[in-house]
């Protein structure tokens, strides 16, 4: 499932609810999870808030493409991507990626692949609020 969220979400509650409904119980031996949340600092400055903009339609399409590419490389049984947009605060969750597979290598590698592709290519943009100004984040950190 791929979902863009305009309001705060609890990644652990979402993961629990999604896992409860999985029809592949007993088939997977590994769940790979990445949760990204907002820091209150960036490039040496305090960051008090952030606005996440995206390109509706293209974002979902691109995330589907990433999942499709991951499925071609690893034998995934299911996957989940949730991503926030709108106004967020430090400690809010920005992204949740989860993948399910029979063995751990696929779960580790596919979750990393999905996150790296998302950060490099999915059309989201962050604008930070500092103590007395705002600024667009010009590029993501290398990892």
């Amino acid at each position: 499932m791929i979902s863009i969220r305009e309001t705060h979400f609890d990644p652990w509650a979402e993961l629990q609810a999604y896992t409860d409904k999985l029809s592949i119980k007993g088939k997977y031996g590994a769940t790979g999870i990445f949760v990204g949340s907002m820091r209150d600092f960036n490039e040496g400055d305090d960051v008090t808030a952030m606005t996440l903009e995206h390109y509706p339609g293209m974002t979902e399409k691109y995330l589907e493409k990433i999942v499709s590419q991951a499925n071609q490389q690893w034998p995934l049984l299911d996957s989940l991507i949730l991503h926030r947009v709108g106004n967020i605060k430090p400690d809010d969750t920005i992204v949740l990626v989860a993948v399910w597979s029979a063995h751990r290598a696929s779960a580790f590698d596919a979750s990393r692949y999905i996150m790296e592709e998302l950060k490099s290519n999915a059309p989201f943009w962050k604008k930070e609020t500092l103590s007395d100004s705002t600024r667009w984040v010009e590029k993501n950190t290398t990892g």
Partner: protein
Amino acid sequence: MSINVRFFASLRESLGKAEDSFELDSTNTVKDVWSRSTEGADMPVNTLCSVNLEYVDPEHTVKDGDEVAFFPPVTGG
């Protein structure tokens, strides 16, 4: 032919518009759409382009009804 244009993030703010729409002759590229919409401004070197929600090269030829978008490097996740 009719072209719809969208700008996002810092490009939207610097150009002062989120959308544009106009008629163009055939055989125009994405780069031509940028020039028409920005009155000949230079395209920032790191600008990304898409047509109908797919990444394309600035030399990509547009067709009637296309949605062309311009945006800076992405910073999600």
